[in-house]
């Protein structure tokens, strides 16, 4: 039905440029959440939203976007993106071992590679993931089984949250973009958000610099760690810098719309405000990790070659800081969302608001937000086969004395500051800190997928080519092969191995 609402011209255009591969089907639960999100937004913003078209899809690219042509905005809502976020949220709430986070990222990386047309690389990623699972099973002392400890309380919370808040957050964000493009929506609130962003940007550097990791002709980082980094302080020209700043502010405006609809659903599902702060930040953290994958993985060449891998500046510091500020402003009554949202956040405890809104805490939040980016940098560096970079003397002192403002050197070394421990899955089977579980699983996935893409022959030697051979002989479909590790983990045994 929704496909027809686009009209003949847009339909023809989108069919022509349909470059996405089909994922699964959009589940009924998610469709229902999309419909109720839209009806809530229609109640709140009336005719501003009526013009915006929504197309729910499920694709292997797992990325939602809003497109605008001839003054018509269409939100392409990708259910797989929400699914990816929810899977990661479930892993986090159940406090699972890093290997299970790792599997989830490896599958998403495989799906992305396949949808970019890199089928063989995608299968190698699955093959390596399977090897890691076998090693994990072997380490557990009971070969063939996966001891998968899950926190039952966390799983219960996950059930209670449901899919709707995550759908609302993504869809609301995209609708927010469409509203910003049309200069419609809650303009007074948008202006307050822009003003706050500018004020905070003077204290906290909300747009960190871009970063390049240079690789030499053998695909190794050039001349050691510190000299292989280029363009750290790349400053764009004024005109472009203004555009970038405006687009970052627009992100926060769009996040505000997502935040409002998100609140509506968490309130409906009986989640307390203090709990939902954590939930909100977890969903954004998952989204940022997935975004890093989207930007990084397509750039990795399929053989060792000279190249500079570009890390675009992370948006998460700005998003985290602004979310915390939005929560504070809503609870104080400065921003004016619909009544149910405002009343909900007024119930939030004073302590929780303090914990995320003082300047010291905002600095801490901005620093935490660097985690996904730095884990990916470290993962890529080690994935090329380079040794762990030695620690430079003096960094401890600099860090202790000046914190994040100690300069580039400290910032460059950030991925390795926690030591080799977090990049080795075999060390982490009993890890109980949820922050390390998620971050290490992610860092290891980036490291292994870099290897699988760039050093294909080595991977074939290391893990064999059973899946690749089965695929070439057409015994297994590409997408089933890529997703096979998930089935293994769900069955918790190696018996379903293909």
């Amino acid at each position, binding site marked *: 039905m929704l496909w027809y609402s686009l009209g003949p011209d847009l339909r023809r*255009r989108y069919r*022509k*440029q349909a*470059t996405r*591969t089909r994922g699964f089907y959009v589940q009924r639960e998610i469709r229902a959440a999309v419909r109720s999100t839209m009806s809530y937004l229609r109640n709140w913003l009336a005719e501003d939203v009526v013009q915006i078209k929504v197309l729910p899809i499920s694709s292997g690219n797992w*990325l*939602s*976007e*809003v*497109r*605008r*042509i*001839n003054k018509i905005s269409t939100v392409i809502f990708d259910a797989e*993106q929400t699914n990816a976020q929810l899977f990661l949220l479930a892993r986090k709430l159940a406090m699972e071992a890093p290997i299970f986070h790792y599997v989830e990222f490896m599958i998403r990386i495989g799906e992305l590679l396949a*949808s*970019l*047309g890199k*089928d063989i690389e995608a299968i190698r990623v699955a093959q390596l993931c399977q090897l890691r699972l076998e090693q994990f099973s072997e380490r557990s002392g009971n070969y063939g089984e996966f001891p998968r400890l899950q926190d039952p309380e966390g799983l219960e919370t996950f059930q209670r949250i449901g899919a709707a808040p995550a759908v609302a957050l*993504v869809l609301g*964000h*995209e609708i927010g*973009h469409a509203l910003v*493009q049309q200069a419609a929506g809650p303009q007074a609130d948008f202006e307050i958000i822009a003003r706050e962003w500018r004020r905070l940007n003077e204290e906290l550097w909300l747009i960190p610099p871009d970063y390049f990791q240079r690789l030499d002709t053998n695909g190794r980082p050039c001349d050691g760690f510190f000299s292989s980094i280029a363009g750290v302080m790349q400053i*764009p020209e004024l*005109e*472009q810098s203004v*555009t*970038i700043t405006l*687009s*970052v502010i*627009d*992100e926060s405006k*769009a996040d505000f719309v997502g935040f409002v609809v998100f609140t509506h659903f968490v309130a409906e599902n009986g989640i307390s405000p203090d709990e939902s702060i954590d939930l909100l930040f977890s969903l954004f953290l998952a*989204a*940022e990790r*997935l*975004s890093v994958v*989207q*930007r990084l993985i*397509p*750039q990795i*060449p399929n053989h060792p*070659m*000279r*190249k*500079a*891998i*570009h890390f*675009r500046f992370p*948006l998460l510091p700005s*998003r985290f800081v602004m979310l915390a500020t939005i929560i504070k402003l809503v609870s104080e009554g400065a921003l004016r969302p619909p009544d149910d949202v405002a009343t909900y956040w007024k119930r939030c405890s004073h302590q929780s608001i303090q914990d995320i809104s003082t300047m010291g805490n905002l600095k801490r939040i901005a620093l935490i937000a660097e985690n996904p980016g730095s884990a990916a940098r470290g993962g890529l560096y080690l994935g090329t086969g380079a040794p762990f970079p030695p620690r430079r003397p003096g960094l401890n002192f600099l860090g202790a004395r000046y914190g994040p403002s100690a300069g580039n050197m400290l910032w460059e070394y950030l991925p390795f500051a926690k030591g080799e421990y977090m990049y080795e899955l075999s060390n982490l089977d009993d890890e109980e800190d949820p922050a390390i579980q998620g971050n290490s699983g992610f860092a290891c996935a980036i490291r292994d997928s870099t290897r699988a893409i760039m050093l294909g022959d080595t991977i074939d030697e290391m893990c064999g080519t059973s899946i690749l051979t089965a695929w070439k002989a*057409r015994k297994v*479909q*590409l997408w089933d092969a890529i997703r096979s590790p998930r089935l293994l983990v769900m069955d918790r045994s190696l018996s379903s191995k293909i």
Partner: protein
Amino acid sequence: MADVLIRVPAEFEHEFTTLWKQLRLFEGLDSSADLDNRESVDRFDGHALAEWVVTLSSAVTPLVTAVLGYLAARRGEVVIKEGDSIQEYRGFSPSEIETIYNALKRPQSRPPSLSKKFRSRKRGRTKG
């Protein structure tokens, strides 16, 4: 006929369209070869892009190959689509341009999916 999707970060849109226009002039083409129907794309990861769909023809292909260097410098994206085959290049480096150039000349085809095979079998059966 293959379609090519060109995506440029929103902040470089003006620069890119100017470049395309100049290339078009020097190629001796009229304004029908200009980029039109620009579409803005805002992704969830905060990446704002401008996108154009170009249908490859003997006149337009040289322009697409000419802008590849620019796209490498500005971290643009190229998607080559012919039928079911999709090749997407994001964040490519100058030495990868040759691969894209070859793909533009002769779009690579991926092995047909099983569903397609199934369709053709079914058709065969009805004929038989």
